[in-house]
């Protein structure tokens, strides 16, 4: 038991040193590769803690190698933009001047509903409120809003990828009949509608599939 306690203390001190060397970046700012390395380190550290039959170095050496490679890679990424692009990718514009880039969404493997959810978390309830929305390399979406008077009601999806969104219909009070009429007015069948939003005043905003392929 004493051995396990001492080994745990040694690993704890080693982990503090290792994390101190890697720097002060916060969890929310981690790139995907950094997140994976952090998870790997925690997993590696737990093995020699639990198994006193495994050499302590079998946990410490992989951690030291991972931390070193991570540091060297991040230093190289600072020197080379190409390497940085290969490892972390580039930010991608998903909305520009209120227009959704379906190509960007496909590239990011992001659904319209995922995007709308992220926008709502940033107090954006209507795509037209967005000047720019950019998917950052760490997976977050940055939003720059259009300057205009505050809206009185929120626009929520009532059709998403050709399917009716029940909660959106209930929230805005629109009916299937209204959706059908609105789509007919735009000459767009339901299956061709990527996103149709509506607000309390039943103002519609439609994006067809394949529209704004930028």
């Amino acid at each position: 038991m004493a051995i396990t306690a001492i080994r745990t203390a040694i690993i704890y001190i080693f982990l503090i040193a290792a994390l101190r060397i890697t720097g002060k970046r916060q969890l929310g700012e981690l790139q995907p590769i950094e997140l994976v390395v952090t998870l790997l380190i925690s997993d590696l550290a737990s093995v020699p803690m639990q198994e006193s039959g495994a050499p302590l170095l079998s946990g410490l050496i992989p951690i030291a190698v991972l931390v070193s490679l991570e540091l060297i890679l991040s230093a190289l990424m600072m020197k080379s933009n190409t390497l940085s692009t290969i490892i972390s990718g580039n930010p991608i514009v998903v909305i520009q001047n209120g227009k959704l880039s379906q190509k960007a969404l496909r590239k990011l493997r992001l659904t319209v509903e995922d995007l709308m959810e992220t926008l709502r978390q940033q107090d954006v309830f209507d795509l037209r409120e967005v000047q720019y929305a950019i998917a950052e390399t760490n997976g977050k979406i940055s939003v720059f809003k259009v300057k205009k008077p505050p809206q009185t009601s929120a626009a929520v999806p009532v059709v998403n990828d050709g399917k009716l969104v029940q909660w959106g219909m209930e929230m805005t009070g629109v009916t299937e009949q209204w959706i059908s009429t609105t789509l007919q007015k735009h000459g767009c069948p339901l299956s061709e509608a990527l996103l149709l939003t509506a607000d309390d005043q039943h103002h519609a905003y439609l994006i067809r599939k394949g529209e704004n392929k930028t």
Partner: protein
Amino acid sequence: MKRVVVAIVLLLLVCVGCVVSITAQRAVLDDLTSQTHAMETLFKNGDIPGAVAVAEAFAADYTHSTRYFALFLPHNILSDIEKSVVSLPAILEHGEHKDFVAEVYRCRLLLQNLQKLELPTLQNIL
């Protein structure tokens, strides 16, 4: 920049540690293997007290070496070999002599396997 230097130093230390451990392991295991040959020869020549002395020295050497091996080798493998090593003087002094050669052979094979275990060969890496 300091962090990168620390990272490079860490990697170099790991590389040096790998080379030192493999070299030391090879030297110690070569020595231990030659001791198994020596005790087998003495036994076959009928020099039982001489074989007992070598077997006891062999067991002591193994225990001393594994103190360092335990830093980087799996403890269960070292423990398996130790069981065979410590049984050799006991077999000579109190057991059936006919089992001795087989046990020495087994012990030698385990040592040879241990020697190959940490080598960075493609087979071991994969």
